[in-house]
């Protein structure tokens, strides 16, 4: 990879904040040379390489160092050690409405924001209309900024920031306050930026957004890069990190997501999830219904997590005849099921299924909580068979089923298997091949010529 294609590169980047209890301590320290501060490490040995024309998603828990990383890259914070190289003009949206004055109107603030970002008056003039149009704030653009809602502020901030046409755009969660449609619009704008080989660095907690729009994703944890790679895998690992580790009673499934870059020790664990899922289907075709069938490779499953108070022992997709299947015809009846062994009594059990498409977007989902509005009380040692009968109204394509059980309270996961089942839907014929759903359509064209029209009129 030549240097010209690299937008951001960091080597062993670290950031340590010095905390002085007393402002005089800093002065005292510089005079005597004796340290009088506490250190808090925000970033530690971050290695990162971002290429031109790439959208990279950054995930991580609160306090993991995401914002610090972005600020160091943007240059508003100085790194403590390590190398940082940035090629190109950076624009950063680190906070909503920065540089905007609440008393001024939206229009005046566009000028101010544009000037702050390095545009000239003329440039702002020429872009004013497109900025207002993108923000969709025509009606309120001459009202004071303070009267705007949070979402409107985000829209104006984003519209101004993106109008600079930066080489590198850094967005820190600013998009999450916009409504879904505006987010969508922003993302397609980001993709247009990417087409001009601009680079986007995006912090988001929305795994859907990350999987749909990013080329690559990374997770920061305790100031380090915890995992990095393909967005779908990374967002699952992130999910795992959020919910899986919290109550680690059993060792196997909980600790099963290794830091992808650091320790690809276990070959089985680092298998791509879809490969693992496929094995399920072939095996299930061979021996139907045998108990503990998947025991062998379940623990090796990298996308399985939960506290282990109950354990899924079997799951599958059945066709209208009750046979296991990997292919469902659109419009046909089918049944999803799973078998859950409860090791302990669980008072607030919620379990169910979700179907996702290849991008990881959830298309459908159901739990007993959603269905009955009450949690299920499971006794210790009981075996639950959970099933969902449905008509497959999805259109042709490949889909994945995520299934699992969780506590209602805080959504603490008990046992979750991401993409446990992969299946294919075929048909219906006669609609677009990229259709998402089957609407059981009757389509016709009625021809009415003038003669008949006159006839009906008369």
């Amino acid at each position: 990879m030549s240097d010209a294609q690299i937008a951001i590169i960091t080597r062993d980047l670290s950031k340590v904040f010095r905390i002085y209890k007393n402002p005089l301590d800093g002065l005292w320290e510089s005079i005597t040379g004796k340290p009088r501060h506490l250190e808090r490490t925000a970033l530690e040995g971050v290695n990162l390489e971002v290429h031109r024309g790439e959208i990279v998603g950054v995930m991580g828990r609160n306090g993991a160092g995401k914002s610090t990383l972005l600020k160091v890259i943007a240059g508003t914070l100085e790194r403590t050690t390590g190398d940082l190289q940035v090629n190109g003009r950076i624009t950063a949206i680190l906070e909503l409405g920065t540089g905007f004055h609440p008393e001024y109107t939206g229009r005046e603030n566009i000028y101010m924001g544009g000037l702050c970002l390095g545009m000239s008056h003329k440039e702002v003039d020429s872009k004013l209309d497109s900025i207002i149009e993108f923000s969709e704030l025509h009606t309120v653009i001459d009202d004071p900024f303070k009267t705007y809602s949070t979402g409107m502020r985000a829209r104006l901030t984003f519209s101004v920031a993106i109008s600079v046409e930066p080489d590198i755009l850094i967005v820190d969660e600013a998009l999450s306050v916009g409504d879904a449609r505006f987010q969508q619009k922003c993302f397609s704008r980001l993709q247009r930026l990417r087409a001009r080989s601009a680079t986007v660095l995006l912090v988001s907690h929305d795994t859907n957004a990350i999987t749909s729009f990013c080329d690559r994703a990374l997770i920061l944890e305790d100031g380090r890069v915890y995992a990095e790679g393909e967005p779908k895998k990374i967002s699952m690992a992130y999910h795992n990190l959020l919910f899986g580790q919290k109550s680690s009673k059993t060792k196997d499934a909980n600790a099963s997501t290794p830091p992808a870059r650091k320790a690809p020790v276990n070959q089985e664990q680092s298998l791509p999830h879809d490969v693992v899922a496929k094995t399920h289907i072939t095996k299930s075709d061979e021996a139907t219904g045998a108990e503990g069938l998947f025991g062998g490779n379940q623990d090796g499953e990298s996308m399985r997590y939960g506290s282990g108070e109950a354990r899924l022992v079997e799951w599958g997709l059945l066709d209208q005849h009750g046979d296991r299947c990997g292919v469902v015809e659109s419009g046909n009846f089918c049944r999803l099921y799973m078998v859950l062994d409860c090791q302990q009594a669980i008072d607030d059990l919620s379990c169910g299924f979700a179907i996702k498409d290849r991008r990881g977007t959830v298309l459908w989902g159901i739990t007993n909580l959603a269905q009955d509005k009450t949690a299920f009380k499971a006794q210790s040692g009981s075996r639950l068979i959970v099933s969902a009968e449905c008509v497959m109204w999805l259109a042709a394509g490949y889909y994945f089923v995520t299934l699992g059980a969780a506590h209602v309270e805080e959504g603490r996961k008990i046992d979750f298997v991401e993409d446990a089942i992969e299946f294919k839907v075929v048909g219906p014929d006669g609609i677009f091949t990229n259709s998402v759903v089957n609407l059981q359509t009757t389509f016709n064209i009625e021809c009415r010529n003038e003669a008949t029209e006159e006839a009906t009129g008369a």
Partner: protein
Amino acid sequence: MVRKLVDLVRLLYSRRELIAELVRRELRDEHMGTTIGALWAYGQPLLLMIMYAVLFAYVFPARFGSKVSMADYSACVMAGIVQWLAFQNLLFRAPGILIQQASLVKQIVFPTQVLPVKTAIASALPYSVAVLFAIGYSAYHDTLSWWTLALPWLIFCQMIAMTGVAFLFSAGGVFIRDLREFVMIFTSINLFAQPILYNPFATPKALHTLFYFNPFSYETWCWQDALFRPTAPHVLAWIVFPLCSFATFIIGWLVFDSARHSFGDAL
């Protein structure tokens, strides 16, 4: 060092529109919501000047019954006070420049150098009307001379000095939050530590020695020469004042530049 200064000037030039907009805003914001708005920014200094003029032309002479022509004396006070009021205005604001704009410094990729320059201009600009008043007052009392032509040069030097102080204090204010309080005390003392309010023909010797140690005195003398026809011009002041101004600017910028990278952390 020369390159750093050239870079600074280039950056400031390329961001002149931003600076202009920021100055406009600072003057407007301060009196936001008042009926006559930005007029206050210019009106306040003018009212102050008129107050001083009345005080020194009519009130004090009546009290002390001095033998010197009191009208002349008040013209001399006008010449000295106008530059100090402008400078004092900057000194009040300088320590807070970056602290008040913390979000700009921390949150976006923003040329922080622009902020002190903006404040220097924004604190001087309202005194343009006051300077015109001082010139008019001198003209009325017939104390203008060829030295008056040097006024643009004096204003330029003062802007340089004010920008330098703005750089120095804005950076200092980030790390030493007490700076503001020190400056408050300093400004109220400094009014009396330079030859502004004193009758030039009746100043005690001891005070004269003090004046020579105060860099602000040289500025005052220059302004007095320019607006109050000198019998014996302060030649030394015309050399020291520009030198001090440029030195302040360079030192201020170097300190600001070296501290610039830690602003984000300290705020």
